[in-house]
């Protein structure tokens, strides 16, 4: 790891001003992505601004219509929150499938979304529920937030503060995990919202990152059962391909995981 200077601000305002005063600063939350990247010398920020102890980024709030989670909340906290499990069980389940217990004890919602890894889990829930990403500057709809591999609508120095997830009528998350890295080889978040509309978001598979599977949404809108997806196939053209799985393999997995997720609605 290259040399860096560590800062621990005690407010969001102080974090923002430290950021603008440094030459190449990065925010540090759980460090479960940034520190491995720095150890590989793939990132070399001059300054690290630690957000992990900011009370302003903590907390879970549940209303009749939404679950709002502070960006600094760890995966373990979301996975074991009784409130989240009651309101959106699929979200608690998703958080419990991120990495391993030690990663979940430190890694955060905000860090995962800021990074926008194409195989990360949280982007599927944010897009699959049509969540809103709140920052120090504005509120961003899920559709505008994700802009391709490792790319988001966030501007320099903008900090995610919290995320509001609308509570669906029913939802499930099905993840086909890479057995070594534990990231998603393909995973699907499928939801039926309270107004009856269907949202299906796919992570791990798309060559532009998380996306909504429109063909699957249309089939489920006509008939919201797993068998509605029997004839639906996904075009491999837009899929990732690597040593772990070809584009055709991932395209097939999208339908398989979507079927399982809709199957999960019953339970």
């Amino acid at each position, binding site marked *: 790891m290259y040399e860096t200077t560590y800062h*621990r601000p005690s407010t969001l305002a102080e974090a923002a001003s430290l950021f603008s005063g440094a030459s190449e600063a990065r925010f540090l939350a759980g460090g*479960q992505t940034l520190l*491995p990247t720095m*150890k590989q010398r793939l990132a070399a920020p001059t300054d*690290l601004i*630690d957000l992990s102890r900011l009370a302003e980024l903590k907390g879970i709030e549940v209303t009749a219509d939404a679950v709002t989670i502070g960006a600094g909340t760890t995966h373990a906290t979301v996975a074991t929150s009784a409130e989240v499990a009651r309101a959106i069980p699929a979200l608690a389940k998703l958080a419990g499938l991120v990495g391993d217990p*030690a990663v979940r004890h*430190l890694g955060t919602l905000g860090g995962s979304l800021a990074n926008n890894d194409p195989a990360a889990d949280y982007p599927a829930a944010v897009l699959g529920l049509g969540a809103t990403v709140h920052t120090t500057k504005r509120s961003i709809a899920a559709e505008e937030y994700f802009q391709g591999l490792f790319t988001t609508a966030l501007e320099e120095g903008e900090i995610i503060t919290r995320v509001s997830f609308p509570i669906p009528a029913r939802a499930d998350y099905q993840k086909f995990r890479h057995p070594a890295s534990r990231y998603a080889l393909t995973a699907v978040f499928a939801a039926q919202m309270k107004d009856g509309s269907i949202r299906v978001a796919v992570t791990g598979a798309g060559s532009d990152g998380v996306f909504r599977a429109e063909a699957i949404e249309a089939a489920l809108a006509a008939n919201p059962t797993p068998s509605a997806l029997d004839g639906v196939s996904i075009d491999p053209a837009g899929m990732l391909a690597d040593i772990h799985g070809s584009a055709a393999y991932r395209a097939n997995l999208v339908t398989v995981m979507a079927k399982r997720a809709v199957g999960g609605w019953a339970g």
Partner: protein
Amino acid sequence: MAKVSLTVNGKALTAEVEDRTLLVQLLRDVFGLTGTHVGCDTSQCGACVIHLDGRAVKSCTLLAAQADGAAVTTIEGLAVGDELHPVQAAFREHHGLQCGFCTPGMIMSAVDMINRLGGPLDEETIRHELEGNICRCTGYHNIVKAIEAASAQMAGLSQAAE
């Protein structure tokens, strides 16, 4: 440079380290606690797992400066005098190690899962909870058996204490 004050295995310790120092480097190279191992540089193997304020974390993926003010427990802090911790004793009893390189991390993860979930734990839970710990020798079978036995024993102990 960062001044880091920690409680390590119950003892208050302070050190002046470079800001980029990882917690595992502070533990091993400065404090001489070499029981915590480093098995990879990708945050995947879990040989470096310690407890930070009571939760299992990978000490290779945390800056020493981030841990300032925290209570850290390492493998050296589990035994009481000559008496091994029940998880350590179970690893010996059930032959839960071969070369022993992964063992400190395995045991710290095992203690963490038993503390969080209570016991006795079943095989499926233990295997799921061990996903962040890699062993190149044992095939995991005896590790799982050791944790099963320790979790049952510790559940029995805590019931007896109530």
